[in-house]
């Protein structure tokens, strides 16, 4: 059945217009700030103003005197567990003893209007015994007392395979280098927000700007001490997330849910930008140490890699970041001997957590800078050196996983290289003020949650046929700007053979489908697509049976395609609406559910060997930059981006993801620069946190490569994260190429570039 279902391709591969475009363009879409509920009151966070210390007293008397004050809620009001750690139980909902970063939550003020809530929150007087704060990885490693938690290691992962010592001993050359990367703020346009309404059942209904409704359900249930089925979580239209709304909404919704239960009224909370940026997660800064052994003819034989991550005050999703960066630490290249360690350290900064790529952009910066440095050392060009070592079908990854199909790495490398024409460009003269450079970077991104998250890597859909031929789909992942609604529409249309216009997608709610895991890890197309196929398979025999009755022919003659139900042998046909009307009148089943979980993965966490992910997306970004040698300013002119997506469900959507990913990558690599002073964010808003503008982003040429993935729906793989992963590394390689100095850090600030240029003058 699957084969039959997969062989047709009418709606898949079409650049269907986004189904949510109109509302978002006209402003008709209601985001949380636009939404209110009868009797609604407002809350604001009360949080630590010191980076590290213990609370000695909390005094709310002044706040209680303020007009508009309704309630102050803190740790002692929690009926269930005071715990919201998503993987490790290290994060209280409200700190009652220790505060670990400026922004660590201590309580919540509920008031009659939002401005007052935020003003009153500042009147809660908290005294502390301050402890010596830790902001850097170095200090976190070196202290012997005053740990942030039991100790300062938040998590660690490793991959050990072959014998690196022997391989280094036999290598013709050994090349070492160290790199650093900085934080990145998600800067979703819509800040964190939710409305929680208490229900008669004793439960709550949560409407939130979020990525993972089932995470929220679990967190709220734990904090309130009520069963999951009393916690209804619905995703509101969400103005961007990028990982920043993976785990963070769990704590925010849990606090507001507690306020709703206690006050017995609907409670709303919307963060202001400055609070949002101070309180919530960022991309992990990394320190990366590489040692690579290579033969004189350019074959990589060994790699020793140490990745160190600044995890901030709580581990949140550090474990996923550390796992991913470890198994992807050498990129899509064959390296038979590896010793890879990835360790995350607690510091007194806001927690660093989920962010598009989960450590992959950082790892890509390491392995791709390293590829260029090694190539230069052995006198090869960066393209040929990569071609020589790139992973091909039936090769093994560094974890020893043999990849048999859908391995488009080489294609992405060749196609982007050829499109850029770099090979045929005479070497840029680079004598004058402005220097031009090119840089290549690759990634192999493991789709879905991988071995570390295998137990929760299943997703559901529910599809309802209405008698008029319209169809409602519920899915468990979310639309957060990436175009999920459109591809879910296309895949449902394809599976049933009906027009996309018949299909309406429900907002995602814990009420409609079973826990489908988080909307992360570029997994929506694969998971929801496969679940749609499964749901269709469950109902199609019944639909065909009904059609055969209705059209009076054998059921194997029935073909549903192009929105038409046809008797293949005879000449009769009917519309899908006629058929569903008949089905309804004849008591046929009108609803189906689908489920898919990723294939079982054989992986040993002790040595990091085995199947890390069941499928990989491949990409090459080739960046062309111009560097102003007088000012150090870098302008990314163009990026040729070749992506092996398996099968393109919606090529326009892929282009959008890639252009957006590259723009965000340019921000991370070039313009954005998050600055702290003793744990307090200095670049609090867009005047100093410099997101790239339309003038700062580059031209992008998207090259779609289709190496179908047998385990993907219609052969598709993920694109959301691969879109950003190689960008920063490609830019760094291009800048290094332009100025003839190794760029070893992100961001590539003009100041840093100028320093490098001065160094080369001194040489």
């Amino acid at each position, binding site marked *: 059945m699957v084969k039959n279902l997969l062989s047709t391709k009418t709606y898949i591969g079409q650049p269907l217009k986004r189904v949510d475009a109109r509302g978002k363009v006209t402003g008709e879409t209601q985001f949380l700030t636009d939404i209110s509920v009868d009797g609604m009151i407002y809350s604001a966070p009360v949080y630590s103003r010191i980076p590290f210390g213990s609370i000695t007293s909390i005094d709310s008397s002044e706040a209680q005197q303020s007009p508009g004050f309704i309630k102050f809620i803190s740790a002692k009001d929690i009926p269930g567990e005071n715990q919201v750690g998503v993987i490790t139980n290290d994060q209280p909902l409200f700190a009652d003893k220790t505060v670990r970063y400026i922004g660590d939550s201590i309580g919540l003020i509920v008031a009659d209007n939002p401005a007052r809530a935020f003003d009153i929150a500042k009147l809660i007087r908290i005294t502390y015994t301050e402890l010596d704060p830790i902001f850097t990885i170095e200090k976190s490693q070196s202290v012997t007392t005053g740990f942030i938690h039991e100790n300062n290691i938040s998590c660690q992962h490793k991959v050990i395979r072959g014998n690196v010592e022997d391989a280094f001993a036999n290598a013709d050359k050994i090349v070492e280098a160290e790199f650093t990367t900085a934080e990145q703020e998600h800067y979703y346009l819509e800040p964190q927000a939710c409305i929680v309404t208490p229900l008669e059942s004793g439960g709550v209904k949560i409407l939130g700007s979020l990525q993972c409704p089932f995470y929220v359900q679990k967190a709220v249930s734990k904090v309130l001490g009520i069963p999951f089925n009393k916690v209804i979580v619905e995703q509101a239209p969400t103005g961007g997330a990028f990982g920043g709304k993976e785990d963070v909404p769990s704590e925010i919704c849990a606090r507001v849910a507690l306020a709703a239960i206690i006050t017995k009224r609907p409670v709303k909370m919307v963060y202001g930008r400055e609070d949002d940026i101070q309180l919530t997660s960022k991309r992990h800064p990394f320190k990366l140490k590489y040692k690579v052994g290579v033969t004189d003819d350019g074959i990589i034989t060994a790699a020793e890699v140490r990745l160190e991550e600044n995890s901030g005050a709580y581990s949140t999703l550090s474990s996923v970041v550390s796992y991913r960066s470890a198994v992807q630490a050498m990129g899509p290249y064959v390296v038979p001997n590896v010793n890879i360690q990835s360790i995350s350290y607690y510091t007194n900064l806001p927690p660093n957590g989920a962010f598009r790529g989960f450590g992959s952009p950082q790892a890509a910066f390491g392995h791709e800078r390293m590829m260029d440095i090694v190539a230069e050392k052995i006198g090869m060009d960066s393209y040929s050196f990569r071609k020589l070592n790139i992973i091909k079908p039936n090769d093994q990854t560094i974890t020893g996983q043999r990849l048999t199909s859908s391995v488009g790495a080489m294609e992405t490398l060749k196609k982007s290289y050829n499109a850029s024409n770099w090979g045929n460009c005479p070497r840029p003269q680079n004598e004058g*003020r402005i220097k031009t450079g090119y840089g290549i970077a690759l990634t192999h991104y493991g789709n879905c949650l991988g071995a570390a998250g295998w137990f929760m890597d299943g997703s559901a859909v529910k599809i309802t046929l209405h008698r008029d031929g319209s169809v409602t789909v519920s899915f468990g992942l979310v639309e957060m700007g990436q175009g999920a609604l459109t591809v879910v529409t296309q895949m449902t249309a394809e599976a049933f053979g009906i027009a996309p216009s018949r299909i309406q997608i429900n907002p995602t709610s814990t009420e409609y489908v079973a826990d489908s895991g988080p909307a992360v890890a570029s997994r929506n197309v694969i998971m929801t697509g496969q679940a749609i196929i499964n749901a269709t398979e469950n109902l199609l025999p019944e639909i065909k049976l009904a059609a055969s009755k209705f059209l009076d022919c054998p059921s194997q003659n029935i073909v549903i395609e192009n929105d038409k139900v046809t008797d293949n042998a005879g000449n009769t046909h009917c519309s899908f609406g006629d058929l569903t009307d008949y089905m309804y009148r004849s008591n046929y089943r009108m609803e189906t559910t689908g489920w898919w979980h990723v294939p079982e993965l054989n992986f040993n966490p002790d040595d990091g060997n085995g199947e890390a992910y069941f499928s990989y997306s491949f990409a090459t970004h080739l960046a062309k930059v111009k560097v102003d040698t*007088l*000012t*150090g300013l870098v302008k990314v002119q163009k990026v040729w981006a070749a992506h092996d997506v398996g099968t393109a469900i919606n090529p326009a959507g892929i282009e959008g993801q890639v252009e957006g990913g590259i723009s965000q990558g340019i921000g991370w690599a070039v313009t954005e620069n998050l600055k702290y002073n003793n744990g307090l964010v200095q670049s609090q808003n867009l*005047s*100093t946190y410099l997101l790239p503008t339309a*003038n*700062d982003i580059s031209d992008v040429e998207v090259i779609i490569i289709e190496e179908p993935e047998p385990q993907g729906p219609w052969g598709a793989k993920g694109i959301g994260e691969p879109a950003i992963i190689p960008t920063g590394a490609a830019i760094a390689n291009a800048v290094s190429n332009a100025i003839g100095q190794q760029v070893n850090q992100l961001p590539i600030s*003009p100041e840093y570039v*100028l320093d490098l240029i001065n160094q080369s003058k001194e040489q």
Partner: protein
Amino acid sequence: MRYLRPKSIPELQEILMKENGNDYSILAGGTDLMPRYRTGLQLPEIAIDIKILPGYCGISEENGSIEIGALVTIEDIRKNHLIQKDLPCLSQACHEFAGTQIRNRATIGGNICNASPAGDLLPGLYLYSAELQLISAFGSRKLPIEDFILGPGKTALKPGEILVSIHLKNQFDNSRFYKLGLRQSMAISVINYAMGWSVVEKSISKLAIMAGSVAPTIVSLDGCCKSFLAMENDESIAENIAKDIFPIDDIRATAKYRQQVLKNLILHDLRKFPG
């Protein structure tokens, strides 16, 4: 907060008289004022919105001198042909100023009275010897811009006084503006400068450079210009630039970077001159 919007100068003067000594702010485009209100730093009791005052939103020329009303927006200056022709530093500065929305609101008067060391119009205004026309209920006076701007956010504006127009004269045959921001648009200057020069018989006869963001107020790089005109070498020109400026570290850049970039850019410009 009370919001007042006088429709005429007499009405404004009456308000200014009455509110003399009270906590008020003049509000023009509001693009400096509103972000400050938002952070709750400087919420005055009274906002006096001067945007609809008649007579101060035009650009005109008389006897070789150009007058710009204090309420003229950055966008209007950018598009004005007279300015493009006679005061190129101003139109270039407006071209690189913020983005369209801000340019449509922000006024030249606000840029001057805000007295930011990074204000993009200021180097050009210094170069073109701007004279500022100030009025109050008690009369009017004219001040050269360098006597008006006293420090970051500090001006010689007296209580009850407002800026109504700016008078400019370009004494140079050529002039240009340069801005370095950390993004291609919507960026506050890390450094900026306006340079004016005249050429007689293929050699530079007159040179002035006004640099912003490298000191509490705009500085005239006199030492550097003298050094160049005396045909000294690059090192001594660079030394003189260093002596003229007093940059600081801030969130956008370090003093060291500002110093170096200004030196790089100016030496680069000067090398292109004949002689």
